């Protein structure tokens, strides 16, 4: 049977998110979006641009700057059967709502013995933008992935942003959907299909290779792709594994890649110490020990509050040279 041809459009990661938000708002009256400055102001990162005028204040809700309060309201509304999408202006601000997310949303289904569900999405940019300093630059996906009851995804491409956000909105569990300021302008092909979803828990091989697996998610996948390009010039064939989904985590694909390459570098923008990359690295070590020709290496963000000065900020975030240096460590 021939595959059905689906038309695609070239668009930015930002527009892919905006597109799926609009489509889900139109598809389901229970879906609404709430957050700071998302309506009349059109969204700080312009993800919700035009939506307030199109869908009105019932569906696109400007909130006061009270993250714990409005996240809790979204959780309560989800318990009562609605499907809220909460925008965090930056994921850093979700720290104010941490009690609501970890202590409430993540535990509802379990503590009620399955009586209640919490179909909630919390989305927004996590990680460095440009000189936003220490309080606006956190990568929190590892904190959230640590908590059972939450699903956590971090797409790196426009098509995954499009398909995974739809999956998130239709999911009956609370989902943390982390974007990255550096990804909003990344372009890609997005299918013109209002039912297109990318299931969670499936990593994706974005580039095949034989010498080393570069394992990452979110913007670091783009860094890994660029690093693989450079490594190829040096005669090193790197495979790029885009993790996409932290919880659930697809170790099958990651282990299969390591079985092929026998070496792994795990790249993540979050603080290197105690970050989610450590979880992936330890799992590779536990599950693929016999396949490894070298210890698994982590390449993460520097363990400092992100500084303001541009040169210092850039120093903190793993870049192509850092990834290549990590690969070279493997010998």
């Amino acid at each position, binding site marked *: 049977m021939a595959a059905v041809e689906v038309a695609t459009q070239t668009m930015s990661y930002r527009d892919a998110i905006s597109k799926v938000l609009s489509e889900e708002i139109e598809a389901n009256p229970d879906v*609404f979006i709430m957050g700071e400055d998302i309506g009349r102001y059109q969204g700080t990162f312009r993800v919700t641009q035009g939506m307030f005028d199109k869908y009105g204040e*019932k569906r696109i809700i400007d*909130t*006061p700057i*009270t993250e*714990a*309060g*409005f*996240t*809790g*309201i*979204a*959780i*309560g*509304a*989800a*318990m*009562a*059967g*609605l499907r809220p999408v909460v925008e965090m202006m930056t994921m850093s601000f979700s720290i104010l709502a941490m*009690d*609501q997310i970890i*202590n*409430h949303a993540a535990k509802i*289904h*379990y*503590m*009620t*013995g*399955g*009586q*209640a*569900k919490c179909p909630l999405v919390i989305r927004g940019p996590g990680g460095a933008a440009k000189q936003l300093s220490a309080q606006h630059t956190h990568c929190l996906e590892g904190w959230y992935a640590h908590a*059972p*009851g939450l*699903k956590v995804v971090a797409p790196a491409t426009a098509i995954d942003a499009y398909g995974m956000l739809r999956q998130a909105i239709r*999911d*009956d*569990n609370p989902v943390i959907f982390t974007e990255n300021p550096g990804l909003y302008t990344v372009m890609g092909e997005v299918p013109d299909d209002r039912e297109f979803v990318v299931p969670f*828990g499936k990593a994706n091989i974005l580039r095949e290779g034989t010498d080393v697996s570069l394992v990452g998610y979110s913007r670091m996948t783009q860094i890994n792709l660029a690093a693989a390009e450079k490594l190829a010039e040096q005669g090193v064939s790197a495979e790029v594994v885009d993790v996409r989904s932290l*919880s*659930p*985590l697809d170790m099958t694909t990651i282990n299969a890649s390591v079985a092929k390459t026998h070496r792994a570098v795990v790249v993540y923008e979050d603080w290197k110490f105690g970050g989610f990359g450590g979880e992936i690295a330890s799992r590779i070590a536990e599950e693929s020990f016999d396949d490894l020709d070298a210890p698994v290496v982590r390449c993460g963000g520097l363990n400092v509050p992100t500084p303001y000065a541009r040169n210092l900020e850039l120093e903190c975030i793993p870049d192509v040279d850092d990834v290549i240096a990590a690969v070279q460590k493997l010998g």
Partner: protein
Amino acid sequence: MAKAKLEEIESPAMLEEFYRQMLFIRRFEEKCNVAYRLGKIGGYMHTYVGMEATAVGIHHAIKPTYDYMITAYRDHPQPLLLGTDPVKVMAEIMGRSDGMSRGKGGSMHVYDIERGFFGGWGIVGGHIPLGGGLAFASKYRNEDRVTICLLGDGAANQGVVFETMNMAALWDLPIIFCIENNEFAMGTRLEYHAADTELYKRGEPFGIKSERIDGMDVLSFHKDMQRIVDWTRENQKPYWVEIMNYRFLGHGAADNDRQLYRTKEEEDAAMKRDPIARLEEILLKRNVMTREKMEAIDEELTDQVEAIYEQADASPFPDASEVYDNVYTDMEPEKGH
């Protein structure tokens, strides 16, 4: 009209129902305390002894199972009143497989979502935005439900309370914040935890209708709550109510040092306001019930609670294989140590 309604509310049948419900809650909670001391109940457990008029008065003012209700961890009486199988409530408190959450919640986390009872939360004040969300949902769907959001005087200081009050007023959410002011935030007396002890005033800056009412006289309290619930349903706006009551026992079953924060004399004086004893006086005075009848009801309810306990105690502990159930709706979490 108003007078006819009043008489209807205070019919002998209704008075007897109030009495039975308050006494049932007390006997149930006393049994919980006994079971706790026997080691049959673990963790933290907070009983409602002394505050029964509040739960019963609210229950009769709302449309039970239609309206939404959410509370903190003093959460045994609400589902019992809503008609949840008391064996399932007791089994949950005892961590058994027949519990409402199959033993995953415990005393602080009792839920009956089908009956509109959304628990059952352990972080002081943390559930209050969730209450706002319940009211948000009913408003969003153009229903005429009200949400009863119970909170303690201690919780009234949490930041999310003020955040929720602001949004409730801003968005006209049909929520009634019911502060069960039992005068103590765990072991800290009201005047040591609140800058202004007249908590009812806190609604006023938000333009929320606010008042303080007595929660120990079930008849007057029920009438007050009926008026407040009706207003909220009709106007679809929030209400902030400070309900004055008193808990006769410790904050929780683990609180054995009440003398650290209140005197025996004070407790004795409070006991004179015992809502059950007060109702008994009214029942006698109005010739609704004799002492003998009251004693017979007490015996009946005590036996009933005993039977509930026995049935709950016969329920097995949850199977170890269930530990991963309900973390997610559609998948299992990472497994193993």
